[in-house]
């Protein structure tokens, strides 16, 4: 039954012999968002994606796309999928290939041709519509793969490393286009990528996965807020002296000088901390460069989450 949750997995598990590739994975993706799927190599990202698109069979657990069981024709009808290493019929032209892919998804030929023209233009491939795919560069193939994923106007786009082979311009251009999709066409995007800075720009929510398990999942905003709550960053012309001056102050719970050359402070009382910092700066005769709430990046969240995983 259709609902507002686009992807939901409950205890999804996939074993290859003795290897546990996906281990009781729980993921929930709301409709209309761009959801990142992040984890180290071998974490089970691609296996999970293949499970979601119905390419491989689950060992146990359950998963649904738009309320339909994964692998079912209804679930696949809602999906447009671009794999990590896209492959094509090399002797076909880009146009014929896209029309064929749309037709396979149940789009009528005339509509498929119109849609293909539209997608080729959207992905800057119009000039190569009648060129054979075998001669395409890696970047062009990547864009063509995204075009085939979108050929039947799916409600959910599942993209595995979509910017992997693109040059910086192509990457930025694609990110811009993808970012607009949920708003313009109501598409939900489930995207896996190793380039966290790109994801951060794009995503609304994220699932962090390690060793086949979900280690964190939430909206990116909430995750950042949680990690920046009561955490401050201070940078002065003489950080070591300022730290010494702040040492033992009642409002400071924790303080350290990070590798980034900035003092990271944990404090429950912003006002008291502010007074203490100003006093320390004045006392040491330092120049205050920057002081404010910690700016948490996706990379920080990723590192801290994976480090926690290692500790366990």
């Amino acid at each position, binding site marked *: 039954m259709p609902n507002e949750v686009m992807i939901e997995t409950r205890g999804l598990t996939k074993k290859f012999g003795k290897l546990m590739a996906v281990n009781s994975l729980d993921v929930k993706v709301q409709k209309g968002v761009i959801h990142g799927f992040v984890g180290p190599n071998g974490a089970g990202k691609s296996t999970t994606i293949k499970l979601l698109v*119905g390419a491989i069979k689950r060992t146990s657990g359950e998963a649904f796309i738009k309320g339909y069981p994964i692998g079912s024709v209804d679930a*696949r009808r809602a999906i447009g999928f671009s794999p990590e290493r896209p*492959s094509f019929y090399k002797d076909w032209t880009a146009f014929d290939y896209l029309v064929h892919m749309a037709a*396979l998804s*149940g789009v009528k030929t005339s509509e498929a041709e119109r849609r293909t023209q539209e997608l080729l233009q959207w992905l800057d491939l119009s000039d190569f519509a009648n060129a054979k795919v075998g001669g395409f560069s890696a970047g062009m193939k990547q864009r063509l793969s995204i075009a085939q994923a979108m050929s*039947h106007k799916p409600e959910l786009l599942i993209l595995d490393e979509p910017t992997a082979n693109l040059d910086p311009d192509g990457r930025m251009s694609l990110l811009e286009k993808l970012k607009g999709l949920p708003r313009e066409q109501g598409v939900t995007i489930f995207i896996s990528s190793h380039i966290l800075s790109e994801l951060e720009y794009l995503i609304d929510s994220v699932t962090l996965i390690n060793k086949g398990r979900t280690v964190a999942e939430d909206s990116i905003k909430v995750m950042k807020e949680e990690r920046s709550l009561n955490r401050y960053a201070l940078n002065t012309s003489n950080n070591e002296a300022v730290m010494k001056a702040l040492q033992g102050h009642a409002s400071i719970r924790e303080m350290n000088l990070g590798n980034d050359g900035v003092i990271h402070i944990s404090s429950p009382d912003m006002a008291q901390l502010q007074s203490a910092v100003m006093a320390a700066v004045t006392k040491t005769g330092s120049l205050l460069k920057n002081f404010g709430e910690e700016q948490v990046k996706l990379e920080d969240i990723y590192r801290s989450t994976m480090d926690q995983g290692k500790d366990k």
Partner: protein
Amino acid sequence: MGFRDVVRKTLIDLTGWKRTLILLVLGLFIPVLTSVFWRFSLQNANLSPDMAKYDVLERFIGISFIWTTGLFLAFAVVTSAAGAISKESSDGTLLTLVSKPIARRQIVLGKFTGIVIHSLLMITVILLIQAVILWFLLPVEAPTFGALLLAIPWLTLYSLLVILVFASISLALSSLIDNQVVITVLACGLIFFTFIFGSISNMMFMMKPQAYEDNYVYMIDGSYQFGNAFAPALEQALGGEMLPPRELEEITYFAGIFKGGRMGDVYGDSSEYQYPGELANYVPPAVSAALFMVLVAGCLTVAVVMTERKDVG
């Protein structure tokens, strides 16, 4: 919708000009070569027009059964079907294909249908060209050409059986094994076994022909079953009249549809030749055809089930 597109894609893949040219050359090579030799023998034979017509028709059907709709067609079908699933799998295109909203059984059956349609069209064209070549190369009258053309629908009907059998076997192998070369080698081994088994069984059971019958060896003898299923088509192709036994035997020798114990006679003194064999009517031809249909259904079921279960990517 998806099924039709899989059929269409399969047809496009199989009708590349290079492949088509190679198949045409291969398919026609043996008939052309033999026609050149027949030309000399016919020129020296001084046959009446009726006899000449019959002789040409017999040769046309004989070479068609042994080569064109036999070994060649089986090879052509195997090379078409061997990569149907496995090539998509090894090329990585199957991953995208199975993510589309089309049932996997439709993919398998669509490819099967495409291979059958292509092979049927190809063999019809080759038989037509073969008939034209015979007409040009052999000293025959126009009515003979007409008789050759009338034989083609029956040969095509028989071809359909060969196509269905080898396409389904190859497709089943293609769903079980990812390596296209291994599939082709296995399927070719099967082809040789099937078409040569008739000759082998003749030799094997020459001394004790009854053992072939008593142990029901003919039931698993593909060459017998094909020959048996071919017999009605052959009869129709010859204008509703069965050939005299010896001619029939020569044509269907490879099919092993005669009872054993005749080798000495075949290669003995032809002037003293007496037809020793008896047409082996172990099972009605319809049963042979039905057995093949069961085999086809079984192989397709394997192909569908294995493709449904396959982890792709």
